[in-house]
């Protein structure tokens, strides 16, 4: 589904990603770990099309097509979703209106009719129930004044609404209490099918108890320095990163 080849990217003269190779197949869950500043969020941003970063070499291929020339919204229409490490507050736009617009824009781009209001409402009910979200949040301005954990839950609610092919969760677990972590992990697991894939970025093994990865990769200084199965995460938890740097 996703193939990253020799990806180099950075800002201005500063290289951040220095030759990433990664293949994620449909149905798989990949975890990416690595020390602070190693480039995990940059990688998610580049996959999602953030123009703040310049790709200097390599390619990002989604379902056999390079997406580097596509805008973030076009990539979203192809099924890419990123849950932000730091979700943005958007005053004046309610979560409901935001997600409605997002869903209908995606449908429009894929040549479908707008979702009838009734169905939209039903979907919102269902997904907010799945994430045990208080519906008060939905009418509030997007993320404005939300607590850290509430923002993360809201990200996964949006993911559940949009049903992406490729979901990238950038430190979705940070800021969540234990109960919330279970709820959010459950939300992610509900999305898992043979057709889609998940990339989980985290610092902690704990999340991986709930969202069990097929592969674990360690990112260090813009490169993947080690890959392995789910036991690699346990090893990292015990030993830290020094032994692989």
């Amino acid at each position, binding site marked *: 589904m996703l193939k990253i080849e020799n990806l180099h990217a950075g800002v201005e003269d500063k290289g951040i990603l220095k030759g990433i190779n990664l293949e994620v197949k449909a149905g798989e869950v990949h975890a990416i770990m690595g020390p602070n500043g190693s480039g995990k969020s940059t990688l998610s*941003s580049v996959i*999602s*099309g*953030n*123009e*703040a970063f310049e790709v200097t070499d390599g390619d990002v291929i989604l379902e056999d097509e390079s997406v580097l020339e596509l*805008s*973030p*919204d076009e*990539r*979203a*229409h192809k099924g*890419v*979703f*990123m849950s*932000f490490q730091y*979700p*943005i507050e*958007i*005053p*004046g*736009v309610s979560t409901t*209106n*935001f*997600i*409605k*617009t*997002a*869903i*209908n*824009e*995606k449908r429009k*781009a894929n040549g479908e009719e*707008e979702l009838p209001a009734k169905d939209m409402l039903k979907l919102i009910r269902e997904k907010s129930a799945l994430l045990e979200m208080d519906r008060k949040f939905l009418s509030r*301005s997007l993320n404005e004044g939300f607590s850290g954990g509430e923002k993360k839950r809201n990200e996964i609610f*949006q993911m559940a609404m*949009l049903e992406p092919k490729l979901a990238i969760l950038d430190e979705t677990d940070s800021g969540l209490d234990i109960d919330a972590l279970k709820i959010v992990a459950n939300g992610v697991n509900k999305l898992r099918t043979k057709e889609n894939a998940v990339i989980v970025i985290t610092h902690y093994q704990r999340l991986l108890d709930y969202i069990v990865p097929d592969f674990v990769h360690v990112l260090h200084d813009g490169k993947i320095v080690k890959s392995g199965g789910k036991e690699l995460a346990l090893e990292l938890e015990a030993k830290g990163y020094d032994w692989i740097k």
Partner: protein
Amino acid sequence: MSLKDNLISSFMVMENRGKVDLDSGFHQMRSEAINAFEKQGFPTKKDEEWKYTSLNSVLKHDYSIFPKSEAAVEFKEVKKYFVHEIETYKIVFIDGVYSSFLSETTHDGYDICLMSAALKKPKYKMVLDNYFNTIADKENSITNLNTAFTMEGAYINIGKNKVLPKPIQIVNFYTGSEKDILLQPRNLVVVGENSHVQIIERHQSLSDNVVLTNAVTEIFANKRAIVDHYKIQNDNDNASMIDSTYVQQKANSIVSVNTYSFGGKLTRNNVEFFHEGEHIESHINGISILDKKQHVDNHTLIHHKFPNCESFELYKGIFDASSTGVFNGKVIVDQEAQKTNAFQQNNNILIGDKATINAKPQLEIFADDVKCSHGCTIGQLDESAMFYMQSRGIPEKEAKALLLYAFGNEVVEKIKIPELKTRITKLIANKLGVKLGFEI
């Protein structure tokens, strides 16, 4: 002949023709006004109050000054310019001439009618003597010009204890029957104790011919009156507008003046509030969304003279392309006006590379026990918010519009007439060139 000379000689012609029915008091007032205008002339950029707005480009035309004939306009052609979804009183002018056909006035319990009629009939004399030109700024040359040529406009006099069952629309159409036309409507609004009035005002050009409107409105809110005045400024590219609105409030009254400036070539709004009593609330709100080379200048004044009054001012501006904006918000709190609450907020977003805004809050506070705050921001579209929205599938154009909507929403939210709110929301969507699947 310069426009100024032309105006002064036209005034003489008007006098000699006895075109307006003058009593001696009115005659004196007009003469003083034209003399003042002759001395003051049109404002230039040397004037502190006009530093960032040049009238040169709008004054160079050879304007016709007196409306010639009544042009016919079919209701169905202009229906869209009315808030027609609700019942309203209507005072409609076509090229400065009253259109009885499009209007819906009343004398039943209160007067919602014409300035020209009020000027002629003795029974209105007392109201005119008490109110007319009593708060309009005599130092303002353009207001003086309007006073000198007062002929037509809305005359609204609501007695005590009347809650109007429907809003009043004052609509001025220009058909383009004259090549370049100068129009000077003059409105008087007197609202009695405990009465409630809502007014929607619009100026709309129906052709591409040049029009300059110099409108003056005086509003008097007596004790506990509630008055809301909404001005839709969405005229086309050859229309310019100088609007001066003067408001006097008595104790416990609540008045709002709201401007929605999306269209026109040059728009200057002067809004001035004067307090004559305690426990008054004044609200001034405005939103400007400009592109091309449009220019909007909002000049406001709130003068707190009595204790325990509040004023709330909120102006937002979105400036694309080479458009320019000016905000000058003056708040004066006299020494006697203790326990004043005065809030002012002015937020601007510059989108166009060549767009500019000159924002100047001016607080002159002479009382010590007051709460006054002002905030002024000038920013760009938030890139991280744009990426966030786009990453969820919302295309750049729509994401931008949604952010700008959200930015302006605080002002739109203050509209108390739901149908008008919908209308303004749609005008904003049009201006931003998008269709959104919902209304904020």
